[in-house]
């Protein structure tokens, strides 16, 4: 029993160590990438390619997952609310939760697993088959050529996908609300819109734009962590696998930690 606790503690420590190291390498790459962005031209074509590969292709999975998340949230909170006869509030609760937390987090985690990992695998394969060395020898700037388009693509696609997730999640809640909780459709729509408009700034719902801001940060984190892990891969196919796993672990961990910090900043400190 004690041994098991000790073992888990050691594994947790190892996990944190790996993440801190990976995050360290990523910070360096992030700074490099930002430099490339402000100096010199940015080619649009590779960014669009990456947006397609890294974003458009993940729309179906994001839609499905957030639909069911919206539905289950509505069902769970709805059943509780039903006890107090307050089921009309379900639209309010689910839409705020979707936009603030669930939408960005779900999108972030899906992109980490589906796109960040692919970036790590792709750059990892290039690393172990001498392609990155070849780029160095040809004096091609790897950060500008490989990393910048990926980071920009996810910084754009992650909020767009999050917007999709928010909308679809609310639709899912609406389906459950109307069919299972007998909330009128008209009422569901008006309460939801009202709830999101409640905290408006520049007539933009705060719940929504904070969520989208988070999504931009998540997109950048996923791409930078994926690229950094891939570029450091050594040791053939096994090394590529290690890099991929490392990228997913680190970016998911960073996403949930950053999410907490950002929520604290926007809703904890600021509004008090």
């Amino acid at each position, binding site marked *: 029993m004690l041994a098991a606790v000790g073992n888990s503690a050691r594994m947790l420590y190892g996990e944190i160590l790996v993440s801190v190291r990976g995050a360290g390498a990523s910070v360096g790459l992030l700074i490099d990438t930002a430099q490339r962005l402000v100096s010199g031209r940015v080619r649009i074509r590779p960014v669009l390619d990456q947006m397609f590969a890294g974003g458009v292709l993940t729309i179906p999975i994001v839609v499905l997952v957030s639909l069911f998340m919206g539905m289950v949230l509505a069902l769970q909170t709805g059943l509780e609310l039903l006890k107090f006869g307050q089921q009309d509030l379900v639209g309010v609760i689910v839409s705020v939760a979707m936009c603030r937390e669930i939408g960005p987090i779900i999108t972030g985690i899906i992109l980490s697993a589906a796109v960040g990992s692919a970036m790590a695998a792709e750059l990892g394969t290039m690393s172990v088959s*001498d392609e990155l*060395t*070849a780029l160095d*020898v040809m*004096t091609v700037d790897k950060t500008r050529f490989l990393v910048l388009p990926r980071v920009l693509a996810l910084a754009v696609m992650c909020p767009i996908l999050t917007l999709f997730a928010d909308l679809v999640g609310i639709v899912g809640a609406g389906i459950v609300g109307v069919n299972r909780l007998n909330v009128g459709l008209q009422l569901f729509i008006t309460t939801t819109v009202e709830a999101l408009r409640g905290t408006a700034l520049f007539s933009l719902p705060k719940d929504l734009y904070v969520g989208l801001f988070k999504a931009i940060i998540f997109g950048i984190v996923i791409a930078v962590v994926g690229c950094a892990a891939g570029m450091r891969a050594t040791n053939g196919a096994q090394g590529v696998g290690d890099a991929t796993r490392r990228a997913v672990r680190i970016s998911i961990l960073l996403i949930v930690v950053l999410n907490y910090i950002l929520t604290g900043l926007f809703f904890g400190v600021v509004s008090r």
Partner: protein
Amino acid sequence: MIEFRDVHKSFGDRPVLQGLSFHVRKGESYVIMGPSGSGKSTTLLHMVGVHRADRGRVLVQGIDVADAGIEELTALRQRIGMVFQGGALLNWLNVYDNVALPLRETRSLPEAEVKERVEEAIKLVWLWSDREKLPSELSGGMRKRVGLARAIVTRPEIILYDEPTAGLDPAMSLQIDHLILDMKRRLGVTSVVVTHDIPCATRVGDRIGIISGGRIDVEGDPGILDSRDPCVLRFLGHGSIPGDVR
């Protein structure tokens, strides 16, 4: 032109180069041979500053590669072309774009000149009709030839070839050897050729060095491959098989 002085290099606790010394003169083609894992590719990568010597000096065109700053190193690399052992092509670019890559990314040439140079390079390796193909649609030998085209398209002063003819059929090997000789004769390119292929070494090499134990074991003109020098015989595998029937 290129000079190694007592170069030592270890990866972890595994020594690979242990006092490697040799030099290559301007316009010369120097062939490096040696068993697999003896450090031939590692030696080439020292010339472009990808690896840095633990001890000793690597001088290329008078520049100490291990001490060179980033700008000096970049300028040096732009004068060197390298053919990688596995081709090292980018898998999402077709043949044409792979060959055009170093011109487009590192030199600001007008697209017309890029086109002219790329066409010339691809035709030199007889792949013009395959220019639209992706690397995954090519054979290993074709990929190697694309790598060769990519190395010469920048018109370098030094070309490093890592096994340029491995995996090619004899006729194609012969053609590549002629290409290497052509680059040297017509353009005065200095070349370093790593190869296992004895006919290739004999044809293109002005001098041959055989690496063993992390240093040049024997060095001389291609004639040494026919000599009875024990080091050469050991490399060629003669006498190493018990009960050799010859």
